[in-house]
């Protein structure tokens, strides 16, 4: 009998003015991938059975060791990576069990697994995940064109992606599909074709990210050497605008710059970042935030696995944010949400009014047409959404 009952994630609506920060999101970084994608700068290694076993022990250790720091009820658990779908259901269940034993759980938490489509090729696999209580999947489809997947260095194929989508679409299971756009040489139509096909499966949630060239990734190196066609900002903009239109036409709510959801199915875990709520991250390179301080575990599996009797915790760095930094991060996260930020929430968090802190910046950005206001809400305009960095920078 599983600790987490097999249960569908129920829709959730929230329209609060002051965000409840007495809740916690847990992030588990599973640092293994069969092969490294050409664009990815996240920390991962090729899995060896012994290393994986050792890692799981250490992860349990970290979860237990740090549990005392986090008393708030856990509303979401997120297995990210890396490729967490590499882990067996038993291993995942073990981690969930450690969480259940050491953390306070809110009723019906969202439990998400990031899945490589190659790992979901039969109903039985999905069945297994449901058995242990997972209730949300984030499927890394990225593209439905083989040449694009090759360019991205993805380990799965288009047919595998279609198969996994078919399996998910046959059930009521909640899932997200990740798509990447603005690839080198890609026309807006190429991306929109991917999107149109995805829409046939009608996932509850779609994330459309444009490719970001991270320094020192193979893709960025090839771009730098001029081996790949240009990434066109104009095509990216055109594709993005059409994406918004098409998804809104199909009732998806555009709720964050890169994220769309059918009503009630926003990603609760990612909302923790945007709503400036506390979260705790475990595993190498994972980040945590307790509303004052940010912590980042060292991005090294070797260091993570090194046993140090004198230091039972894992190697990490902490930095306490000053008020200025906190406010800047609050705004650059909060304004990513299309509903924007609420003056009352800002006030309740900082004990200072938004106007006292940023009236000049806000007035300037409104004047330039990047920000708009309605009641207590301040949010990005359509132009602000396209050129968000201009807005975010104003608050730094």
């Amino acid at each position: 009998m599983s600790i987490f009952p097999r249960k569908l994630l129920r829709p959730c609506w929230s329209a609060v003015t002051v965000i409840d920060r007495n809740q916690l999101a847990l992030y588990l970084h599973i640092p293994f991938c069969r092969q490294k994608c050409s664009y990815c700068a996240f920390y991962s290694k090729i899995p060896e059975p012994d290393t994986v076993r050792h890692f799981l022990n250490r992860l349990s250790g970290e979860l237990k060791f740090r549990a005392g720091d986090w008393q708030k009820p856990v509303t979401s658990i997120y297995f990210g990576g890396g490729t967490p779908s590499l882990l067996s259901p038993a291993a995942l269940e073990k981690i969930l069990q450690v969480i259940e034993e050491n953390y306070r759980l809110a009723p019906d938490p969202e439990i998400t697994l990031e899945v490589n489509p190659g790992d979901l090729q039969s109903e039985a696999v999905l069945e297994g995940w449901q058995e242990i209580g997972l209730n949300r999947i984030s499927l890394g489809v990225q593209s439905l064109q083989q040449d694009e997947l090759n360019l991205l260095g993805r380990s799965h194929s288009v047919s595998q992606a279609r198969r996994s989508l078919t399996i998910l679409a046959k059930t009521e299971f909640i899932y997200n599909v990740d798509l990447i756009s603005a690839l080198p040489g890609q026309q807006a139509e190429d991306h929109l074709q991917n999107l149109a096909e995805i829409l046939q499966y009608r996932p509850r949630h779609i994330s459309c990210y444009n490719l970001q060239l991270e320094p020192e990734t193979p893709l960025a190196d090839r771009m730098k050497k001029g081996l790949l066609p240009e990434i066109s900002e104009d095509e990216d903009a055109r594709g993005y605008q059409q994406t918004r239109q098409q998804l809104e036409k199909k009732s998806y709510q555009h709720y964050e710059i890169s994220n769309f959801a059918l009503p009630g199915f926003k990603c609760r875990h990612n909302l923790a970042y945007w709503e400036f709520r506390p979260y705790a991250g475990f595993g190498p390179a994972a980040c945590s935030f307790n509303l004052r301080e940010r912590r980042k575990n060292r991005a090294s599996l070797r260091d993570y696995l090194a046993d140090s009797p004198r230091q039972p915790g894992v190697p990490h760095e902490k930095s306490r944010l000053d008020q200025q930094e906190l406010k800047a991060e609050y705004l650059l996260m909060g304004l990513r949400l299309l509903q924007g930020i609420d003056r009352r929430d800002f006030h309740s968090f900082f004990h200072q009014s938004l106007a006292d802190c940023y009236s000049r910046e806000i007035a300037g950005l409104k004047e330039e047409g990047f920000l708009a206001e309605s009641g207590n809400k301040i949010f990005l305009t359509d132009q602000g959404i396209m050129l968000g960095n201009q807005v975010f920078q104003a608050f730094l």
Partner: protein
Amino acid sequence: MLADKIRNFCIIAHIDHGKSTLADRILEITHTIEDRKMQEQGLDNMDLERERGITIKAQAVSIDHKGYRLNLIDTPGHVDFSYEVSRSLAACEGALLVIDAAQGIEAQTVANIYLALEHDLEIIPVINKIDLPAADIIRVKEQLLERGIDPDEALLASAKEGTGVEEVLDAVIDRIPAPEAQSDEPLKALVFDSLYNSYQGVIAHIRVMTGSLSRGEEILLMASEKKYEVDEVGIFTPDMKPVSCLEAGEVGYLMAGIKNVRNCKVGDTITKMSSRAVQPLPGYKDVKPMVFSGLYPTDNSDYEILQEALEKLQLNDAAFTFENETSAALGFGFRCGFLGLLHMEIVQERLEREFDLELVITAPSVVYRVTTTEGETREIDNPAAFPEVNEIETITEPYVEATLNLPEDYIGSVMELCEQSRGKFQDMTYIDQDRVRLKYEMPMSEIITDFFNQLKSKSRGYATLDYEPLGYRESNLVKLDILVNKERVDALSVIVHRDRAEEIGRDLINRLKDIIPRKMFTVPLQAAIGSNIVARENIKARKKDVLQKCYGGDVSRKRKLLEKQKEGKKRMKQVGDVDIPQEAFTAVLERGDSD
């Protein structure tokens, strides 16, 4: 110190052939500098010099060895400073010619050999880096023979490993003649460098040619006609060590409460008031800046800091000038005069490093002479200050005679470059069997674009360039204006030849299009002569600029990325609604036709 126990010498070498390493070994072997005090390279003081691997200011050091006083004078190595080089050489009787055993004799070395021979210096060839696997001593000896130097005289050394350095020192003593020194004649001392520091004032580096000089004596600088009383004379060990008297043949320093290097310029002759020399030493030149550009603080509020910095810099650099200037686009700044492009870069870098200033520097210009229709002639060193086209009667510009030495293989491409740069061919002679010397008359303005870089690239680094002013000549010149977002940006104006104005305008606009960052709106870029638009391009509007995913919640990393992006913008100059980066102001330096 008896003159026959003195040897004054310098080291001539191509960059990277081991000049500094050899100098370091000499200092070590003679215990002039203890190991632990030794910086990576003992003689190059400034960080800038060490980074660029060049010597900008001359340095001197006195070495006591086997009863002799060996004065080593390090020399600068760039055409901008050729006058300083010639004064350093004039202070010596001999030169070590250092050649990399693997690289062989290179272009610049040959030019320096001729310079040394012109000063009648005894040359001691040193084949260095013989420890390298690729060392080819026989080939280097053949090359020496081809250039009229007896290869049997060459010494073999590896400065890195310390082999042969002892022999080099012996050769300095045996082969370089002692200075001819008449101590009983009136004092003539050559200033071969002049430095300023805020504690001691000017420190003149001098070579006493005749007579002697002691503390307390009253001296006259013959060119600047300034009188001073000597506070201190001494030698460089390499730290400054006071001595009671500097005699004929000696190299050392002098301090006399001089407050500005302008009163004690390189090449000036020092004599005594009590018994004045009749004639100064030959070769003094009043070095005038040839190249002018505007320096502006990126942040207007740094104007006063910049002014102070320029004043400080000027105390130590007689060739550098500045005066106030105002630009409609850039605000308040300074018009600065330099010897050449390297000098300009050095000043700019020192301002940014030593004074932590962010600067915008406009494209360099020569001094034009413009005669207006009213009959008035004006000297103009700033294109922005040019009169309107219809007010100009004639324009003359400075010409130089450029001398280029190069291997004959590159004649074709170098001649083509000279023609493109409005050069008029004068003469071609063979220096030896495979090297030629070309002479061209050229506008100075062409030389201060990237002529030197292109020359190096077209000759694979083998060509050398030297130039002498020829005076002013009339040219068909026009001012090319650049309009950004329909506004003329005065600091982007350039003076070009009428025949090439459109081509240069098109090329410049094309490059500016990629340099100036996109804005939220379309920004037209235009090149114009008077009211006539000769080229036009649009900088497309920004369509999308927003950071993407934030997996795992690494928010501070996002914030830092944005901060970096914002910081980059701060480094630009805001002109109207457009941010113009520094590269835009010097884009005209790089000609698009380079390959």
